[in-house]
């Protein structure tokens, strides 16, 4: 059950995928914003988004859970 975690402190700008969505490897799950830069967070495997742990506007820390793909 791959967990997608944050690589850095950032604001969640856009949540692109929703719980229940089928995603392919490389699909954008959410777009983070840090230091005036948009950072897309991508699915690292194909599957179903079983959990979306962030909402738009959230501030997340390095290591925080973003999503779970099953």
């Amino acid at each position, binding site marked *: 059950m791959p967990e997608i975690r944050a*690589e*850095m*402190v*950032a*604001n969640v700008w856009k949540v692109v995928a929703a719980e229940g969505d089928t995603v392919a490897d490389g699909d954008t799950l959410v777009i983070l*914003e*840090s*230091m*005036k*830069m948009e*950072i897309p967070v991508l699915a690292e495997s194909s599957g179903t988004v079983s959990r979306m742990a962030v909402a738009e506007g959230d*501030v997340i820390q390095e290591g925080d859970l973003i999503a779970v793909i099953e």
Partner: protein
Amino acid sequence: MIAVYSEADAELPFVTESDEAVLIGPAPAAKSYLSAEAILAAAAETGAQAIHPGYGFLAENAAFARQVIDAGLTWIGPSPDAIQQMGDKISARNLMAQVGVPVALGTAEPVSDADEAIAEAKRIGYPVMIKAAAGGGGIGMTVAADAEALLAGFETTRSRAERFFGSPSILLESYITSARHVEVQILGLADGRVIALGERDCSAQRRHQKLAEETPSPGVGGDLRQRMLAGAVRAGEAVGYRGAGTVECLVDTQTSEFVFLEMNTRLQVEHPVTEMVTGIDLVEQQLLIADGADISFDPAAVRPHGHALELRIYAEDPVRFLPSPGTITQWDEPAGQGVRVDAGYTAGNVVTPHYDPLLAKLVAHGADRDEALARMRTAVAEFVIAGPKTNLAFHAELLNSDEFASGMYDTGIVARLRQ
């Protein structure tokens, strides 16, 4: 000197070292550094006489400049009209063409939809650069090599343009495959004259944002330099420019011809390299000009000496250039002959994700380019920053690359180093 700051920056040196500092709001820039109301209230409360807008946030905001002037304060910058004329890339391009400054083949009016973009790109010829007319900082710029890429890039650029600059206006320009980014420092004097203080080469970029700058440009010879400086003065004169400004150009490395790119109607981040070779304090000139006084030097007697390099030290990883906020646990600056460090942070400070990743500007001057490069290599090796990741390791690599060392590089150098 009175500083204004957001809650995120309360501990930073620019706040602790200022004579007086006023908290103007929470971390999000829209509620602090972009709030004209909060800044003007701080000015009124402290009895400030003038506002220096720096080089980000509201520095190129004509409406803010007008509000400052209307509040009876001195605006340390060009007139709101000049900011506005140069702020829109399309109107700036058209004005430059009118006064005889070369511009790249491109659109004279905003491109409103995808069909029009396709038609215009066919006229201009691929590859084309898609840009936000109100844009800056390289945000939203996309190169399209064919119609398919153009359609995708047009939508991306338009959505970014709306989000970051509040205007969906788009222009297309012919894309120069191998170009150097060279800009000219100008000063519009209180008596109305416009002078040029040499050029800066800013070709080392990632994501269309500058990483390293130098003067003089290794890619600009005597005749081209004369034409660029004269063009930049004409650009300034065309808008009645007053104060410090920068005329950005692209130099085609194949033809050694230049075209006008845009004008930055403010002090530039990389202004220290010009100061190092001319001995002129540009911020001092800004203050004198805003006060209606004479500048501190004789323009006819300026003789730049030696070579200067600047590196932007960013809180980002040196491989993928991804942001790396965090707490700075160690900060040891280099020192030595010809070395200057303009730092925004020190040990104990927290680098937050709210603003630009720029931590410091590392500048080295030498009698010639080789000496400046040697001093810079030593300075980079001696600069120790622990906590956030920084791009210092990238800079060491850049300085040691054959391409940068030769001086014969173009705007593709960073991408090539990362292939």
